[in-house]
């Protein structure tokens, strides 16, 4: 009996080992030899410029730059439900960046999510989108990044929960969720729509925030652009008309994406603010193409009828803290700021972004003009924020009161930042 149990045990253990060996063999990615990158002049200014434009569409610098750090030198923490991941240094520093990466190694990282040494990268790096980009575009991005000034900066180690700190496991994730292959245009649509769709689905990686994620952190393909989450902010749905009274048009969307502000909707805040900072550098025709694509998605959902405006009740906190800019007739309103009734945030299904903006405000756009709002985290108690949020919803929206406001306020406070 003992002998039989031992035999079965050996077979089981042997079987598991064999499966393990097969998995490792399948998951194993070779290291690509380090190189000295070709000189800047060898790429041609055109190719580098195209790479710069694509990097702006992809917002590479947003995640790959630490607070007060050098551009592209990495180190910015990204909080995920599985722990904190630090963005890597993608300047051409040989030791700490991608300076030893050949074009082949760069293309492989974008297509397969594996670094030069063959180590798996986490899908916080949006290679599930980048994989669909054209060779030409990925090569242009390489030309742009490899010709930046090298910065020696080592990112802090990731702080992920066990067992997700084992990078091999990403091979299993890729098996389940990574679908490679170049993006294919829709022949029933025009060139501009297809350009927009291409940028959105590949380098723009809009779905990374605006599509809900499943329990393993992969985008739910069937619910593309149904609305997601980014760093404690709600990323609104982009496949339906917005919850506010005004629909988006190609023109208003283009303006919003390039300036972070549209008079009919308001200002970009939270992570979207940084996206619009980058899109300001992208070619206007590309931003317009993105707007064409999203306006087309939204136009498929039924239009909402704009309800009549409401009479606004007096409130001391609103009047004293917000009224100087947001009350009817205030100087800011005279300058073109929309009524809060137009705001997608005040009309949103959840109070999350309204709370975030009240607490954190909208930061300066360094070196450029743009919307600004001070945060009120230190002025307002949780109870006062809840009062204000309830007041805004009741007076500037026709939608029902939000549930769970107190819980959302606590959540936003716990995330830190003020």
């Amino acid at each position, binding site marked *: 009996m003992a002998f039989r149990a031992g035999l079965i045990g050996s077979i089981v253990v042997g079987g598991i080992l064999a499966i393990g060996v097969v998995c490792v063999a399948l998951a194993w990615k070779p290291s690509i030899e380090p190189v000295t990158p070709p000189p800047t002049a060898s790429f041609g200014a055109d190719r580098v410029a195209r790479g710069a434009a694509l990097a702006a569409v992809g917002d590479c610098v947003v995640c790959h730059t630490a607070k007060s750090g050098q551009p592209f030198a990495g180190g910015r923490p990204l909080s995920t439900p599985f722990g904190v991941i630090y963005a890597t240094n993608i300047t051409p520093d040989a030791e700490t960046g991608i300076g030893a990466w050949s074009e082949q190694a760069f293309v492989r990282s974008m297509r397969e999510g594996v670094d030069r040494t063959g180590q798996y990268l986490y899908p916080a790096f949006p290679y599930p989108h980048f994989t669909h980009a054209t060779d030409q575009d990925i090569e242009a991005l390489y030309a742009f990044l490899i010709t930046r000034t090298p910065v020696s900066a080592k990112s802090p180690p990731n702080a992920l929960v066990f067992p997700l700190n084992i990078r091999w496991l990403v091979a299993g994730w890729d098996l389940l969720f990574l679908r490679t292959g170049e993006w294919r245009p829709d022949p029933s649509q025009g060139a501009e729509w297809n350009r927009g769709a291409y940028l959105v689905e590949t380098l723009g990686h809009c779905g990374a925030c605006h599509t809900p994620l499943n329990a393993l952190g992969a985008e739910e393909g069937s619910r593309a652009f149904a609305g997601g989450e980014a760093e404690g902010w709600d990323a609104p749905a982009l496949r339906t008309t917005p919850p506010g009274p005004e629909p988006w048009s190609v023109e208003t969307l283009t303006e919003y994406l390039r300036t972070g502000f549209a008079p009919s909707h308001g200002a970009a805040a939270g992570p979207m603010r940084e996206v619009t900072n980058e899109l300001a550098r992208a070619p206007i025709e590309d931003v317009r193409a993105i707007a064409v694509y999203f306006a087309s998605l939204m136009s498929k959902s039924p239009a909402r009828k704009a309800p009549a405006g409401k009479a606004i009740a007096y409130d001391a906190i609103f009047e*004293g803290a917000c009224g100087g800019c947001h009350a009817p007739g205030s100087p800011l309103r005279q300058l073109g700021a929309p009524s809060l009734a137009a705001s997608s945030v005040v009309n949103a299904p959840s109070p999350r972004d309204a709370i975030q903006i009240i607490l954190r405000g909208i930061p300066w756009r360094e070196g450029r003009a743009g919307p600004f709002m001070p945060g009120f985290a230190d*002025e307002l108690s949780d109870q006062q924020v809840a009062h204000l949020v309830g007041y805004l919803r009741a007076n500037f929206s026709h939608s029902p009161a939000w549930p769970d406001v107190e819980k959302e306020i606590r959540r936003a406070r716990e995330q830190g930042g003020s």
Partner: protein
Amino acid sequence: MFTLTVNGRQHDVDAEPDTPLLYVLRDDLQLNGAKFGCGFGQCGACTVMVDGKAIFSCVTPIALLPARQIKTIEGLGTESAPGVVQRAFIDEQAAQCGYCIAGMVMRAQALLERNPSPTEDQIREAMMPNLCRCGTHMRILRAVERAALAMKGAAL
């Protein structure tokens, strides 16, 4: 009628609840250190402290403030006996026209109460909300650094 606690003293104030704290400080309590700059919480000239945090008093209605501790630059020291941060600003000659300085001092005070040993980056980040049109930023930075050292010296 509102009861506000400013620099440790209670004041009964007869003002509308939406009145900005700045107006009450200047018009009712004759505490003229905090300045009116923009009125929108964009420049920081009106900065005072509430419960240890630097806030824009021009966009803080007094309805928010009963039961909270308000501190203005008058609460840090006097002309003959300036507070540590005030002393450091004087020593570095950080003021040119001086309009922003009361706000700068209060924001620096709030920073140093929270973080007695800030790095230069932390000082820059903390002071970011306050603007200075004269351009004495480098002196202001040095003044905050000097104040941090002086506070540590005082604590030894």
